[in-house]
């Protein structure tokens, strides 16, 4: 039960702060949300700056080109960059947090040499081809087929909820290589070049009105067998390593940001008179306790991961269940603060309120997460 940082960690924080203070003012203006090439360039440039400063792949192992930092240092990095208003990981997300760590853990020496350095330098952007329209929460029910033809797989199918597909160079793709096997046993993991013939990207508009995601249609796309990471039909296991990375630290920056938004809500409410509404005021007070606890839980989860060698445990589901809900409550409270102003779609909080609706759905619905907690942590019997 230790909340203090080591001297080394405090040094790390101090150097990072200093560097951020130096470089952030010189950043170019942020591109528009709809300017995909501009966003790619912006995010890649930021990644290059991190690379040059020695912060790229902070949590990656050294032999993968990373900095071999401890999870706590990674937490400090995420906390400080969020606090300083640094750019988000953006287009580099999948490369740095999913595909890269998977290749680092499961790829051959050749594969690591081919794909990891460009991710760290911001030279190549990855996207994720896991979800499918007909599979939904039952990810392993994916139907995109890869048929072996000599040294290549011929891939056909459709993927959905793919971010940055428009500008990605590579796609980490889950395909079914053995249709006869039980659903978790016939899946393989491929690195697919996004410029291959037969790949079609169609932007997908969400209820927030934005096109953060895309559908990717695959029509007899030829992918070399050498692009497969891990053994054939072992892709599910390979992927789960990736997913647990995602759950571990994906929300660190967001929790910091939520606490900042909460403060802004309170100050706005005091300015517009709604602070006099005790129901709203007390709701904000309760959310303050909630996010403080979520922040502590994040710290503990990370510190536990440190003890267990870097693989986050099932505690991620506990965190995600509560955080998804708290984030939705936060933006409902924002709507209360805004009153009829919450009908203004141009307000940033309104856009964030809309996107918060996906939190109890994406990356495993709350219903699925509750099953995981009940069955894997509490040991309740399988069932429906």
């Amino acid at each position, binding site marked *: 039960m230790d909340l203090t940082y080591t001297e080394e960690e405090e040094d790390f924080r101090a150097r990072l702060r200093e560097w951020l203070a130096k470089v952030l003012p010189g950043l170019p203006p942020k591109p528009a949300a709809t300017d995909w090439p501009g966003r790619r360039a912006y995010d890649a440039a930021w990644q290059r700056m991190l690379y040059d400063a020695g912060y790229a792949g902070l949590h990656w192992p050294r032999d993968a080109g990373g900095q071999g930092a401890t999870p706590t240092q990674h937490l400090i990095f995420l906390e400080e960059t969020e606090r300083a208003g640094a750019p988000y990981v953006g287009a580099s997300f999948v490369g740095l947090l999913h595909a890269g760590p998977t290749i680092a853990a499961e790829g051959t020496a050749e594969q690591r040499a081919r794909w990891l350095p460009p991710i760290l330098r911001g030279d190549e952007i990855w996207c994720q081809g896991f979800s499918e329209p007909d599979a939904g929460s039952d990810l392993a029910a994916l139907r995109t087929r890869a048929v072996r033809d000599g040294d290549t797989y011929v891939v056909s199918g459709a993927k959905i*909820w793919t971010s940055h597909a428009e500008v990605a160079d590579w796609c980490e793709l889950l395909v079914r290589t053995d249709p006869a096997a039980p659903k978790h046993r016939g899946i393989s993991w491929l690195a697919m070049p996004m410029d291959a013939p037969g790949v079609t990207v169609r932007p997908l*508009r969400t*209820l927030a009105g934005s096109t953060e995601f895309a559908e990717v249609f695959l029509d007899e796309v030829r992918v070399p067998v050498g692009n497969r990471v891990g053994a054939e039909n072992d892709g599910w296991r390979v992927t789960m390593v990736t997913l647990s990375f995602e759950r571990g630290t994906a929300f660190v920056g967001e929790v910091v940001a939520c606490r900042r938004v909460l403060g802004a809500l309170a100050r706005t409410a005091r300015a517009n008179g709604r602070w006099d509404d005790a129901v709203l005021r007390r709701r904000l007070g309760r959310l303050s306790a909630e996010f403080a606890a979520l922040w502590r839980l994040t710290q503990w989860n990370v510190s536990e991961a440190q003890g267990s060698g870097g693989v986050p445990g099932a505690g991620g589901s506990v965190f995600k269940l509560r955080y998804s809900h708290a984030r939705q409550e936060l933006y409902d409270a924002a709507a209360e603060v805004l*009153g009829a102003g919450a*009908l203004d779609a141009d307000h940033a909080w309104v856009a964030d309120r809309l996107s918060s609706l996906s939190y*109890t*759905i994406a990356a495993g619905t709350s*219903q699925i997460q509750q099953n995981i907690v009940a069955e894997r942590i509490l040991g309740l019997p399988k069932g429906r």
Partner: protein
Amino acid sequence: MTGPVDFQLTDDQRALRAGTRELLAGRFDRDRLRASVDDPALDRALWRELGAAGFFALRLPEEAGGVGLGLPEAALVFEEAGRALLPGPLVACQVLAGVVDGVATGEKIVGLCDGAGEPWLWEHPAACDELIVADGGAQGRTGGAFRSAPDRVVCAPMASVDPLTPLARLTDLPRGEPLPLDVPRLRREAALLTAAQQLGSAARTVEMAVGHAREREQFGVPVGSFQAVKHLCAQMLVRAEIARSAVYAAAVTESVLDVTGAKLLADEAAVRNARDCLQVHGGMGFTWEADVHLHLKRAWLRAECWGVASEAEELLAAALVD
């Protein structure tokens, strides 16, 4: 699916409801709905058809060219409009049908702005031939009404969260020609008709969730066979039916407390049902192409009109100690 409770409608009321549903299914089907999402300009021809069908003249006496029915019937019709997500200043045109010429027949479209609290919002500003302002007064309980030509109204445009309901924000309350209106009664009727739309939306999202849960398969079975999904749907129905009892009763009694309670429960039912409907739909519900978000956004909008939850709860609380 039929609701568990049919509330003993008369045969005429049933026929009215069925006729309205049929009219809307024919003239405002899903293609038209999605076309309105892309271009929310109102369809004048449809508006005139609504007028011809008695949608606005419903409560006017027969000798004045109306249908001679009452608030309960108007609530049934507005429930259908809420189900279908029919856009337009429907409440304004219904409560002002006997007041502004041409509104009853659907020839003219009139807007209604609630001046009781800022921001002063105006729905479908580009479509309105006139704007009526119901002025505030303390608690919005008294005050007068004024009519203005749209070009005399100063307002700032606003990006409406509901793609089906363009909004403008009045920068000043225009007090044009005074109108001899019973403003408290008008507010009460507007609140009740808004609640009826919320009820229709809440009931419709139950159907949408149930339909999806029956058809969508995951893990080899329809998702509706999972208890978690079942229970979401069951609670949605409970919310809709509780709101229905409150709305129908308030339409009959027209009492302030009943209307206030009905609006409170119907707002909650519409918003929470839309959110649960989204949850049942999963990722598919999160897309622009799905209709779920249209129900949610309109429900949010209606919840801000003609009495919000905090006011309603305070009013009902005060009545407990009267």
